[in-house]
């Protein structure tokens, strides 16, 4: 008896592909990473001894736009995965490229925001808010950057015809990572931007 042809991996006990299980365990682990960063931010919330404070400087309208951009990129990605799954590689490339472009746009917003803050006199050295804000959003930005590189890699692999039906999982895994980065931003936007600014100067003084 021979093994089933084309089976890319040995069948596993749980029926879950090893790489997929790895990705989910990694994401669970990354929850603790961002959890610790967010905990640090919240512990130091309202403890800065000099300004600028969050409500002085965080720009809700601009960040709302960049939040929409990131949400939209997640939508683009599920369309690309759906296209890849049904074998429409051209549509896959269009959507995955759109995802990468939206991800880069989000990063552009972040660079703009950081520059603006530095211009306004907020750097990581200014106060505890600067220290914790730049570290938390900076590590999120690093995750987005890795995600964009990953998406573009898939795009170019597909252009060279190296991302056929047997590589559907590779697309799926990149998506899990990309959506995770999106949900981390959902938390950051709500906690640091909306709640933090709404609570305003009255809290933690």
């Amino acid at each position: 008896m021979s093994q089933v042809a084309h089976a890319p991996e040995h069948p596993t006990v749980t029926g879950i592909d090893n790489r997929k299980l790895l990705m989910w365990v990694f994401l669970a682990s990354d929850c603790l990473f961002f959890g610790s960063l967010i905990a640090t931010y919240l512990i130091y919330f309202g403890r800065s001894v000099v300004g600028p404070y969050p409500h002085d400087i965080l720009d809700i309208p601009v960040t709302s736009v960049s939040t929409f951009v990131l949400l939209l990129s997640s939508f683009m990605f599920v369309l690309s995965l759906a296209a890849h799954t049904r074998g429409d590689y051209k549509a896959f490339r269009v959507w995955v490229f759109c995802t990468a472009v939206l991800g880069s746009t989000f990063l552009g917003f972040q660079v703009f925001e950081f520059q603006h803050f530095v211009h306004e006199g907020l750097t990581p050295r200014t106060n505890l808010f600067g220290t914790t804000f730049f570290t938390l959003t900076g590590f999120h930005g690093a995750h987005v950057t890795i995600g964009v590189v990953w998406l573009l890699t898939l795009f170019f692999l597909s252009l060279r015809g190296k991302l056929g039906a047997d590589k559907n999982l590779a697309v799926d895994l990149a998506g899990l990572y990309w959506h995770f980065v999106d949900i981390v931003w959902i938390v950051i936007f709500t906690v640091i931007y909306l709640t933090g600014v709404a609570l305003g100067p009255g809290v933690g003084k």
Partner: protein
Amino acid sequence: MASIAVARRESTFWDTVWGWVTTVDHKRIGALYGITAFIFFMIGGVEATLMRMQLARPEQTLVSPDVFNQLFSMHGTTMIFLAIMPLGAAFFNIIIPLQVGARDVAFPRLNAFSYWTFLAGGLLLNSSWFLGGGLNAGWFAYSPLTGLTYNPGHGVDFWAVSLLVLGTASMAAAFNFIVTIVNMRAPGMSLTRMPVFTWMTLIVSILIVTAFPVITVALIELVFDRAFGFNFFNVFAGGDPLLWQHLFWVFGHPEVYILILPAMGIVSEVLPVFSRKPLFGYPFIIFSGIAIGVMGWMVWAHHMFTVGMGPVANTVFTLTTITIAVPTGVKIFNWVATVWGGQLTLKTPMLFSLGFIAMFIIGGLSGLMHAVSPSDAQQSDTYFIVAHIHYVLFGGAIFAIFSGIYYWFPKATGRLMNETSGKIHFWLTMIGFNLTFFPMHFVGLNGMPRRIATYSAGMGWDFWNMVETVGAFVIIAGILLFLHNFFRSLRKGEVAGNDPWDGRTLEWAIPSPPPEYNFERIPVVHSRDPFWEQKHPHPLGVPAGASQQRPGNRAQQPAVAHAAETHEVIHIPSPSYWPLITALGNAIAGYSLVYRFIPGLFIGGALTMFGLYSWYMEPTVKHENKKH
């Protein structure tokens, strides 16, 4: 009978080196882990010996207070991150695929990456000795001692960055073992039939992937403060040194269980084999392990009772800490019941496991004493705590690791270690260990603070300190005898055969040392002690109290059946040097971060990316057709 016939030319020395450098075979990686970690263990031992020599008599000046600070800081860090953890990883690597009946781990190249990254982190940390001095702020490196103001040298940077690198290695290995254990068990090996060592490895791996991100964040904050002037622990900007303590111990207490659970796993394998009885209370041992893993997250602030958290927090953490003694006690009772009434064979592995139980009980009891916060206020920062941690980590973890080495040495090498030397080694260790660490309870309760470079005569500590130093040299004699035995047995030891101990689990069913592909055919498992049941299939051969699920089919069904395929393709992962390249990138980035050399960070990062890319694109397996 199968043997892979490959025409081989005469292999040169460099072929051998290249073979080890590019290996992705879990057994070879395990050996690399073991040897490297043992070397670091001896470095940590030298540091300890220097401290003991300094403290043998009052007011000695063998080392300066500054060097002494570095010695105890580096000793703690080395023993925890470079000796006990990777020695555990050596066992995971060599044993887990064999115990679960797999041909390798789930991600062989990731496994190689873990080893090389661990090596890079270990060298990075220890190179600080030659580059201006090591960490001098204690192994938990409390802020603000680690700030640039009090610590302008690079010792703290070396420490923090190397722990970041070592954390990457540990997490990569833990991801790998979680997937391997969950996904790659042989057919029939349900979770309730999994060997205890495999279970404990799974729990430890889960603890590693959840606890290490927390210390990673703490270390990043420390490094950013020092390298880029951030304010995390800058008191003048409102920063709070307690944040470091909390983040460190949120990680630090699960870390204690990361160190001790593999030891508990090893002991749970050894005791049944040398008592010729099944493990007593298997489900209780497993559930206690899980309970310890969960509750280990709720007790961290017992390291901080004296920092002024207030009565509410102190009470809560006292209660949770006392509660966590329950599952630990359950395990000890089950081990004792396993040995009780068994046909004991007091071979060296068994002696070390029995020693583990006794010493670990002492360590556990002293731990309970400072679980109570008012009591801890008296013991905190004294030698009583030093005694406790060594009863848990030396009397516990190291005893179990020696037990495991003697137990699995014949499986890994094909030869037995010498019994007489082994027994002498055990007794030297047992006597030396207690001489060294038991008196620390006395001087500790008498008020001798830890981390002091010397003490005045007439404090009443002279006698016991001398006894402790003598004990340290007895331990060293034991270690030297062990090394002699180890290297001699590698070449001249008695040939072991497949199953020298009448073992119970799958690893004893295959040749020693195992072939590259481990199992010629993947076994099918029908019981908790599959190999034992195969050797003793008759119901009368099963001693009273044996695990008896489905007793009906026992006679007809061999416990280890084999998959039915007659021709099978064995996938052997190809060697690869990309894991090494990627780890090298990490090392370059690490050194650059220590010296705040930004271009080097980019070079290291680029090399890491390049390594990962090439790794991603590289095909994973070579196919060899095996004929029967």
